[in-house]
């Protein structure tokens, strides 16, 4: 596997790979990511050409359909790093980071030129918490959370990227947070991309097990590093009428999550009040 890029001096500018799910479903997570990076002196650029890394197609066997998206992704981000316009690429997602830095090697196996470029890019692509803790050396971002908080380790993040210590260290430093343990915190929530549709029954059973464990932990919120798993877990918590919600770690670290008062998403985008309720709204309601 690719070795991560080492920095002689602290990185000053990064390209944000926001991921399509964050872009379309959870812009507040993207904003929180920007805020965290900027707060630590890192300038953020957003290459507007970016769309999706192609994971949904790759993951379900449609490699032919995924390849153009992979090449496209490399074409957008690799020159920025190669020409030193940015020091690194940062994504608020363990899964999409895995796709671009690990799975592209498999997907582009027969395209040596792209594969090499993808490897170069992959070495400079970091998941958000990894970047904060390992590259910037930050664990205390000065966040505050009043309530019980637990952590769900998303599969790709934990087992493909080996990232676990970093998000936990960041949460450890959140003032006021009562960190509670959850049984089976490192067990899959059952999302798995198209798996959630193709094997809806199994996926739901896995999610229900996760929801039960969350309920048993008595947490007010479950922090995690992937909005895909967050969507699945919240889909179940909401359907089951549970009060607890899954939240992206960037939201916790930017004080977006308020379990007692009004929804955090409004702070980022006040105009979204008119929009249908968000997860956070439901929580307040509960």
């Amino acid at each position, binding site marked *: 596997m690719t070795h991560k890029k080492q920095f002689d001096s602290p990185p000053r500018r990064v390209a944000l790979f926001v991921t399509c799910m964050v872009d379309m479903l959870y812009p507040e997570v993207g904003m929180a990511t920007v805020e965290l990076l900027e707060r630590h002196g890192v300038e953020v650029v957003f290459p507007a050409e970016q769309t999706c890394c192609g994971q949904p197609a790759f993951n379900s066997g449609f490699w032919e359909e995924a390849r153009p998206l992979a090449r496209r992704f490399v074409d957008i981000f690799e020159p920025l790093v190669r020409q030193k316009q940015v020091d690194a690429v940062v994504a608020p997602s363990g899964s999409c980071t895995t796709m671009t830095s690990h799975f592209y090697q498999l997907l582009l196996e027969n395209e040596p030129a792209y594969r090499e470029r993808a490897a170069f890019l992959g070495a400079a692509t970091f998941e958000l918490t990894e970047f904060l803790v390992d590259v910037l050396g930050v664990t205390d971002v000065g966040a505050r959370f009043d309530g019980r908080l637990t952590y769900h380790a998303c599969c790709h993040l934990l087992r493909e990227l080996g990232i676990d210590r970093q998000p936990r260290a960041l949460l450890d430093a959140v003032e006021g947070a009562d960190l509670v343990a959850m049984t089976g915190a490192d067990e899959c929530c059952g999302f798995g991309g198209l798996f959630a549709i193709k094997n809806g029954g*199994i996926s739901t059973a896995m999610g229900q097990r996760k929801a039960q464990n969350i309920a048993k932990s008595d947490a007010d919120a479950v922090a995690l590093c992937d909005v895909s798993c967050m969507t699945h877990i919240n889909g179940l918590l909401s359907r089951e009428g549970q009060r607890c919600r899954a939240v992206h770690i960037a939201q916790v670290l930017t004080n977006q999550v308020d379990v007692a008062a009004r929804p955090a998403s409004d702070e980022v985008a006040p105009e979204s009040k008119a929009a249908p309720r968000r997860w956070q709204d439901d929580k307040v309601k509960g």
Partner: protein
Amino acid sequence: MTTSTIDLTLPYKTRVQDALGNKHLRTALDRSTGRMAGQRVAAMTAVDGQLLRDQVRQMKEHVIRNLPDLLEELERTITANGGHVHWAKEGVDVQRLVVEIARKANVQKVVKAKSMATEEVHLNQALQSAGMKVVETDLGEYIIQLAGEPPSHIVAPVIHRRVEEIAEVFQRELDMPPTLDPQVICSVARGALRKEFLSADMGISGCNFAIAETGTCCIVTNEGNGRMSSTLPRVYVVVMGIEKLVPTVEDAFLQYQALCRSATGQQCSVYLSMTNGPRRPGDTDGPEEFHVILLDNGRVDMLAKEYGEALCCLRCGACLNVCPVYREIGGHAYGSTYSGPIGAVISPSIHLEVTDVDKLPYASSLCGACREACPAKIDLPRMLLELRRDVVEEGDAPLFDRQSMQAFSFAMGSRGRYEAAGKLGSLGSNVFAGMSGGNIKFMPGPLAAWTSSRDFPPLAKRSFREQWKERQRGRKSIGEGKKEE
């Protein structure tokens, strides 16, 4: 009788539905898999488990790289030990070979120790149609043989049944007085099976590993049925996959320990039984005839199709115990002799008749827990991804998947199309969300598979990129303002 059994011949979808709807099955699975997984973790962390896995992996890679030479060496040593080596390309060849050996030796009754390889080739049915009585002697296998069903786990064949159901089978088949005491059930089995052992003409077992340099066939058991089957009957037959060998005696003891720790969390199984041919002059006991059948049945295909890594498998079952999918549906829903992650990987290559085998690579959320548990460090998730690719390339993917993935790839292929799709989606999803007052509780078409049990959030009214653009506009004017100063 309330059973925990799934009909293997049903379509995949039905099998899974039956499994998910079966409370008894899920209770049984819950009670067992978690515990087995926990015991493995304890046993692997008690020693240098990482080094052990690395060394097993290195040894197995060496084995596969040198497979032809090692197989020839094994053939030589077994023959020199006085054993007979047979080669079988397909399952039917094993059936034919064993029936021939049995006929020649005038065999009436066969006792079998647990063996996945013989399950794979349906050996029992073949022997029974040739007029022989076949008795499974592993306690779990014996129970399911009495109940008339196949095993559902590589090492714990009756993991899908609760004690209540097992007791019912014994009361019905063996006139056991009513009890739920496992120790009593066990002693009833001991009595019944001892009779079979003492009167059997042939013993059949699989082989956990065979040692090339000495021609030793090893089986790992806790009950002692493997020892009985390889000791008491006149004829002893071993059926083994061609990949199940190790070069040296030391390698065997290394793999043995990795296997025990991974399978059941034991340091050592109760018995490691090693057979070097038939009994020698002067021996008191042991079989007079010893046969080894080396089975291909799709294993070479696996190597050819780039799934050779799966040939490193020790059949420890660790990947089943940690698999969140296996834990929900159990082994039978896979419809194959081999279930769980490793089953999903090898079933499409092994020559088995599995209904809907192309659905198996999709029976995984790709969470990676299996790879983490595997003592041979087999990258099961990667192979599942590649198998999915194969399914698609062979044109076996459902039309809906194909169309939606093509549409997806097209939409994501340009910024303009992506943004347009986002806008449309945002409008559309908000319509559904509006209908249910917040989260989306209903989506049309195949997407209903999500919303039938889970809510879905509406798309954001204003995407990140829109918000970013606005923000930058604001920034720029500030920046420009500064410049002017």
